[in-house]
């Protein structure tokens, strides 16, 4: 049994209006960051998971996402990283 640091990215589904992303893009433009577009703002979750190996750890986190962390109606998720800690 060892401990892993697992991180997940949860972002609004394609096609779902993301007013936050839009507002950030506008704010960036008015700050002379003309060279940016398509900003999407989502959630970033990091946690420590005890598991036999990395694969199991990331499997556990998937279950957490399906059950609680992400809302399939409007969000997609992606395991971003799994590191032994």
């Amino acid at each position: 049994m060892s401990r892993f640091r697992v991180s997940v990215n949860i972002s609004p589904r394609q096609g779902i209006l993301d007013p936050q992303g839009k507002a950030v893009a506008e704010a960036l433009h008015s700050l002379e960051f003309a060279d940016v577009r398509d900003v999407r703002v989502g959630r970033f979750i990091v946690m420590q998971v005890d598991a036999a190996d990395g694969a199991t750890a990331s499997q556990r986190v998937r279950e957490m996402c399906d059950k609680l962390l992400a809302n399939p109606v409007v969000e997609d998720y992606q395991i971003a990283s799994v590191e032994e800690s």
Partner: protein
Amino acid sequence: MKFGIVTFPGSNCDYDAHHAVTDALGAEAVYLWHKSHDLEGVDVVILPGGFSYGDYLRAGAIARFSPIMREVVAHARRGGPVIGICNGFQIACEAGLLPGALLRNAGLQFVSEPVRLRVENQDTMFTNRYSEGDLLRLPVAHGEGRYTADAETIERLEGEGRVAFRYVNAAGEVDPAANPNGSVNAIAGIVSAEGNVLGIMPHPERAVDPLLGSPDGLGIFQSMMAHVSA
């Protein structure tokens, strides 16, 4: 008849709902504790507004797993009336009692103000005391009230007359300026396919007394009363 008002950690309109049911409607109401498994034989369950579990992660996401919710869902499956107000609407969606989701307001700010609603369907157990087209004045107070669902779901809701209330302007017309949160089709309240679950973002329980600006919300509770005692 008896109303059950669920108190989740972070609920803060349970008191308002209790006031509406007992003082304004004159019916019986009990608080149902989130850890309980007993609905205490209530006829109607109210999922009240507030910030259950701080609205952390997503509004309603954590509350839906409370022990009492298993009983609430069973009650709904049996056809028992459930009304989810504001945070209660969000919880009902997360729990699958209603389709769709409620996202951050399009304007990104919390919005607290009186809005106008148009009654879209008078043939539900929550609206039988109104007539279609009636304009109601109710307060909204939420940061995540933008109703969203996929195109088919919206089509079905509209087609089956399950949109109970819509945000409208003084003239009773849908108008982006009168939509406080950017909800699809200005949807403010919907009912379940079986018609026994209502989700509504504005606060009917806070509009039961002219002294406080509007009594227009009372009709929803009277409708349920009429339905259940019928």
